[in-house]
């Protein structure tokens, strides 16, 4: 190279400005993302307590983690919350999008109303729903005040259903986004498909179910990945709405990690728990990436 192009003496200094400008990105990618992740995974095999200490204990932290009742509750909650919020936000989001796609008037107004909760933080969402679900003043008290004295709807103080109380708030906050993505997907469907289906006399619900939804597969996959990675991160909502209570009934993995790292001063447990979170993300993302990029390479 250097013989054919004598003006460029060194590869290293070619395009120097761009390289200098990319230093923050390179540092972020290599030091923080790759390095930080590797560091956490590595230290999850140590018995670090208050400070990270490199004394290798193998899988001890993981045995302790899976033996801890609190972690069990957290994983179970995340599973219930995850499955239900995936199903409901897809179903509600798609239904709302389909309703908005009927060439209705005031579409922008409705869309603005359905989406505004998404602009609010999980803290605000959690606190509002804590107030609405307050047993003494909220929905339960209002219905009882109407004359139905035995009405009970008290999810935030009932350990067996508290996760559903959180789910209600999460769906209120997040379905608007799903609706927007679905609406964009529906708008991408060729108008002629609808005409053809109508000419063939296929009822509308069948057109949606057997023609439109299969055509929207990429949109669904993207949306599922978005919802799923949001589910694993759920933290602020629980902190604001229930602080993990009553007792430990609404614990989630992200909160377990935070509490063990910064309160219980048991770093090793925190690292092990966060590594488990990483593992669950890998389980979700890798098949998706394989499908997505595998397809891109083939076509």
């Amino acid at each position: 190279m250097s013989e054919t192009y004598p003006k460029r003496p060194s590869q290293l200094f070619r395009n120097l400005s761009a390289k200098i400008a990319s230093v923050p990105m390179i540092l972020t990618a290599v030091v923080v993302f790759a390095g930080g992740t590797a560091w956490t995974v590595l230290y999850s095999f140590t018995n670090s307590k208050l400070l990270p200490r490199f004394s290798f204990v193998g899988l001890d932290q993981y045995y302790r983690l899976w033996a801890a009742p609190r972690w069990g509750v957290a994983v179970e909650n995340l599973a219930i919350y995850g499955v239900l919020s995936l199903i409901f936000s897809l179903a509600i989001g798609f239904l709302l999008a389909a309703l908005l796609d009927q060439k209705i008037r005031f579409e922008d107004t409705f869309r603005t109303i359905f989406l505004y909760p998404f602009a609010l933080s999980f803290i605000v969402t959690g606190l509002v729903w804590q107030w609405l679900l307050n047993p003494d003043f909220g929905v339960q008290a209002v219905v009882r005040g109407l004359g139905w004295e035995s009405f009970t709807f008290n999810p935030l103080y009932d350990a067996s259903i508290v996760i559903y109380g959180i789910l209600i708030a999460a769906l209120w906050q997040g379905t608007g986004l799903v609706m927007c993505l679905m609406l964009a997907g529906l708008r991408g469907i060729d108008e002629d498909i609808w005409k053809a289906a109508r000419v063939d006399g296929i009822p509308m619900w069948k057109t949606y179910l057997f023609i439109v939804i299969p055509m929207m597969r990429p949109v669904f996959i993207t949306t599922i990945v978005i919802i799923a990675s949001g589910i694993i991160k759920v933290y602020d909502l629980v902190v604001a709405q229930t602080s993990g209570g009553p007792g430990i009934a609404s614990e989630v993995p992200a909160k377990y990690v935070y509490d063990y790292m910064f309160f219980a001063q048991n770093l090793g447990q925190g690292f092990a728990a966060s590594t488990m979170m990483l593992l669950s993300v890998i389980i979700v993302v890798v098949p998706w990436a394989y499908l997505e990029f595998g397809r891109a390479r083939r076509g």
Partner: protein
Amino acid sequence: MADTATLDMAPAATATRIETGPRGAKPRKTFSRRNIFLYGTLIVVAVYYLLPLYVMVVTSLKGMPEIRLGNIFSPPVEITFEPWVKAWSQACTGLNCDGLSRGFWNSVRITVPSVILSIALASINGYALANWRFKGADLFFTILIVGAFIPYQVMIYPIVILLREIGLYGSLWGLVIVHSIFGMPILTLLFRNYFTSVPEELFKAARVDGAGFWGIYFRIMLPMSLPIFVVAIILQVTGIWNDFLFGVVYTRPDTYPMTVQLNNIVNSVQGVKEYNVNMAATILTGLVPLIVYFASGKLFVRGIAAGAVKG
């Protein structure tokens, strides 16, 4: 299948012929059963979505005696702004009793530099990746994008150590750096995609005229891409203002952002619960992103559609 294919062709052909004739929807009865169902459902859902906002507002305008006696959905009998004043300037978190105003100004001092720094870094990264690719650039970019999927919990402790090493742990600037780091994947992707779509001739012409890396960035790319900067600003302002996790990890009680302080005020266990003050504080915290949302309209949707890719 071949049958349907030929059938498909025919209606399409007639459709184009019809479209040259009279346009517009077939006249419909306004109160058809379909419309009643459609608008009825939409209105019920809209009321459900608006209800929490309504309850927040009316609760914050009531006095405590009225809240204890009344119904959360009923409008205030006697409107009082005292809860708002109290939430802003007197509500207590721990020993501090100077209200949410402290958190508000902290959030402003965090959000403004974070938005500027993160967008500056990401736009330059995106520009370098789109127009000045060097060997290995794609590798770093791939790591960056993959990193966007890693749960924050995995990286928070190593960052605590890094910030402690450079002496910024607990300060506002430490948090600004953290926001710039975690905003980088999505923003870089946003800018890279945008700059890639800029016609290459423009870039080449500028190079022929002797413009360098920074010259092209400041004189051509920056003025051309203002819309994408607006999208990025919307994305970052709402994202950083609403952040809780980084605020609670990387700042101290006197530098807590608004969300953290709000949570501490409302969920504090001491004292009598003042629901009206709590709701006023909650609205105050949600106000900035709500204003951004209602003011930006369609651009917000574009922003979150871009932000959604990050997940």
